[in-house]
C-alpha cells in the first residue's frame, strides 16, 4: 500500500496575523509555522492505514519553500517514510497552479491512496485536492472522518458527515484522493525514536518552476486587509416590553438577522 499525504505548512492558528505595511501580503516575521491542522489528521490516517496493511510506504508531498521541511520532518518523526518537497521559492502559487504541480508528481509514484486535509487553515480555499483529482481524473471524497480498506485492498469505504448529523458512506475505487476532517483519531505525538530516525529519512527536492510547464495562476492578489475590529456590544435598558420591542427592531433593521 503506497500512500501519499499532501501536507502544507501554515501559520499556527493561534498566531496573530499582521498585514505588511504596503498591504501586499501577510507579514511573516513573528509567525509560528505548523503542519496544517487537517493535514495532521491525514498523516495519522495514512499511518494507520499502513499499519493495518502491515506493509507499504507513507510519503509526505509538500509544495512550499525550504522552511516547510521542518513540518515535513515532524510528519516523518510521527512515522512517515520519506518526503518530496516541491520547492516553490520565488513563485506565488494559487490553488490551480498548486494542483498542477502536485498532479505532475503524484502519478510517477503510483500511489494507491492520496490523503489531504479538508482545507488549509491559512487561505481556506478548499480547492487544491479537488483540482488534483480533476487533473488526474481520480475520484475524490470531501470531507471524510473514517476510512477502511476493503478486504481485497482494491477499494476503500469512507464515511462523510453531512449537515444535520447524517453520514454518507462511499465505496471508492483506487487510486483516489480523500480529504480528511478532524476524525476519530487524534494525531500521534512524534516519539523520541521517531525524531531520531526522522533526520535520516530522505526528502527528495523538485523545483516547482520545472513542473508548471507554462501554467500561470488564475488568481491575482490585489489587496490584503484584516477583518474590522468587533464593535462594542449594545445593552438595552428599560421595561421588558420596551426592551423587547427595541431588540426586535434592531435585529430586523440593524443586524438584519430576522
Amino acid at each position, binding site marked *: 500500500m503506497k500512500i501519499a499525504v499532501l501536507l502544507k505548512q501554515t501559520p499556527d492558528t493561534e498566531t496573530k496575523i499582521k498585514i505588511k505595511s504596503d498591504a501586499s501580503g501577510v507579514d511573516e516575521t513573528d509567525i509560528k509555522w505548523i503542519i496544517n491542522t487537517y493535514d495532521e489528521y491525514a498523516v495519522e490516517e495514512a499511518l494507520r492505514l499502513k499499519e493495518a496493511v502491515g506493509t507499504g510506504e507513507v510519503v509526505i508531498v509538500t509544495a512550499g519553500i525550504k522552511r516547510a521541511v*521542518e513540518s515535513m*520532518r*515532524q510528519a516523518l*518523526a510521527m512515522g512517515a517514510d520519506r518526503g518530496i518537497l516541491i520547492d516553490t521559492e520565488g513563485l506565488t502559487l494559487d490553488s490551480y497552479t498548486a494542483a498542477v504541480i502536485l498532479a505532475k508528481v503524484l502519478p510517477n509514484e503510483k500511489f494507491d491512496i492520496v490523503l489531504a486535509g479538508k482545507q488549509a487553515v491559512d487561505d481556506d480555499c478548499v480547492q487544491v485536492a479537488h483540482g488534483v483529482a480533476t487533473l488526474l481524473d481520480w475520484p475524490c471524497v470531501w470531507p471524510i472522518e473514517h476510512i477502511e480498506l476493503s478486504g481485497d485492498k482494491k477499494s476503500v469505504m469512507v464515511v462523510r458527515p453531512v449537515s444535520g448529523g447524517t453520514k454518507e458512506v462511499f465505496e471508492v475505487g483506487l487510486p483516489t484522493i480523500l480529504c480528511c476532517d478532524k476524525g476519530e483519531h487524534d494525531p500521534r*505525538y*512524534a*516519539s*523520541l*525514536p521517531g*525524531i*531520531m530516525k*526522522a*533526520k535520516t529519512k530522505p526528502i527528495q527536492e523538485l523545483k516547482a518552476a520545472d513542473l508548471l510547464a507554462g501554467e500561470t495562476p488564475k488568481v491575482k492578489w490585489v489587496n490584503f486587509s484584516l477583518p474590522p475590529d468587533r464593535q462594542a456590544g449594545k445593552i438595552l435598558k428599560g421595561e421588558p416590553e420596551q426592551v423587547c420591542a427595541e431588540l426586535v427592531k434592531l435585529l430586523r433593521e440593524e443586524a438584519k438577522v430576522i
Partner: protein
Amino acid sequence: MDYSLTSEQELLRKTVREFAQGEIKPKALELDRKEEFSYELTKKMGQMGFLGAVCDPKYGGQGLDYLSYIIIVEELARVDASQAATVAAHNSLGVGPIYHFGSEEQKKKYLPDLCSGKKLWSFGLTEPEAGSDAGNSKTTATLKDDHWIINGSKIFITNGASKMTGGCTVQAITGKGQDGHKEISCILVEQNTSGFTAKEMHNKLVWRASNTAELYFDNVKTPAGNLLGKKGDGFRQMLATLDSGRLGIAAMGLGGAQGAFEATLKYAKERKAFGKPIASFQANAFKLADCATEIEAARNLLYKACWMKDQKKEFKTLAAQAKLYCSEVMYRVVNHAVQIHGGYGLMEEFPVAKFYRDQKLLEIGEGTSEVQRIVISRALGCYSE
C-alpha cells in the same frame, strides 16, 4: 559562537511541549491534590522514549545528547514538576549509574526494561541521619559466601516505592579503606528481595505526584555480582552521578520558572485594576522584565553546562552553578508570580500556586544550595592554604 539548537532539538522541544500540555496538564492538579503517582502517565512517557533518553540504543535507550535530554526535563517542568521529577530521577539517578558504571552483564539485564519504561529504578543515598554529609551514612553491606548482606535504611528516595520500581542502587559501607576512612560501594538491590521494604512517603509540600520512599534493609541478601563497578568506588560514582543529576534539577528550575513566568505575563495583561491591565503598572512590569532576563541567563548557563558535558569537557563546577542559579531564579520568579497574581496566586486553581510550592525542593535535592556553594567556592580555591 552559535546559539541555535539543531532542528531535531527544536522538534523535540515542540513534541515534548505538546505532550506535556495535552497529556499531563489536564491531570496534574488532580494528581497533585490526591498525592497520586500516575502509572498511566509514566507509561506514556516511557512510550515517548523519555525514560532512557541518553542511554545507548543497544541497551534500548535513545542515544540523545545531554542537552536534548535537558530540554525534555525543562519542557515537562514547565507544566508539572512531579512528572519532570519522575523522568529526571529515573534518567540521572536510576539509569545513569548502571549505564556508566555497570558491567556489560548488568547493563544487558537491567537497562532495556528501564529505558522502555517497563520498570523504574531509584538511587538510595540519603539516610535519616546523613543527607549533605553523605559520607556519614550508616547502611552497611558485608560480603558473606557470594552474597552481600545489607542492613540499614534510606529516606526521600525518588521512584523508590512504586509498583513499577525494579530496584535501587544502594550506597553502603563495605569496609574501611587503607586511610581509615569508610569504604563506600554501590550495590544493585532488586525490589522483591526478602528483607527489603519500600514505603511510600506522604504529606509532601512539593512533587506530590512523584513517588518518594523510605527504604529499609533487614539482612537483605543480594548476589555478590550485584556490586556496581569496583568495591570502594561508591563515593566517586555517587559524586559523578550527582554532577550530571544537577543538570536535571537545574532544568526543572528553568522549566518551572518559564511556566510560572508565562502564566503570570498572560495574567498581568488580562487582569485589570484601576481601569488598566496590571502589567502596565511599572511595579509589575519591572518584575516581569527581571523574570524574563533571569530566565534567559539561567537558560544560557544551563545549556552551556550541557554543551561542555556533550563536548566531553570538564563541566562539574558549571553544573553546580547551573543547579544553584536555575533553582534560585525559579525561587525569585515564583515569588514575583504569586505577588502579581494577588489573592488568586494563593489558590490552587491558578498554576502559580503549585509552581510556588514545587520550587522549594530544587534548593534542597541533589545537594542543597549551600552544598553547591561549597562545591563552587572549593573550585575557586577558597579553602586551600
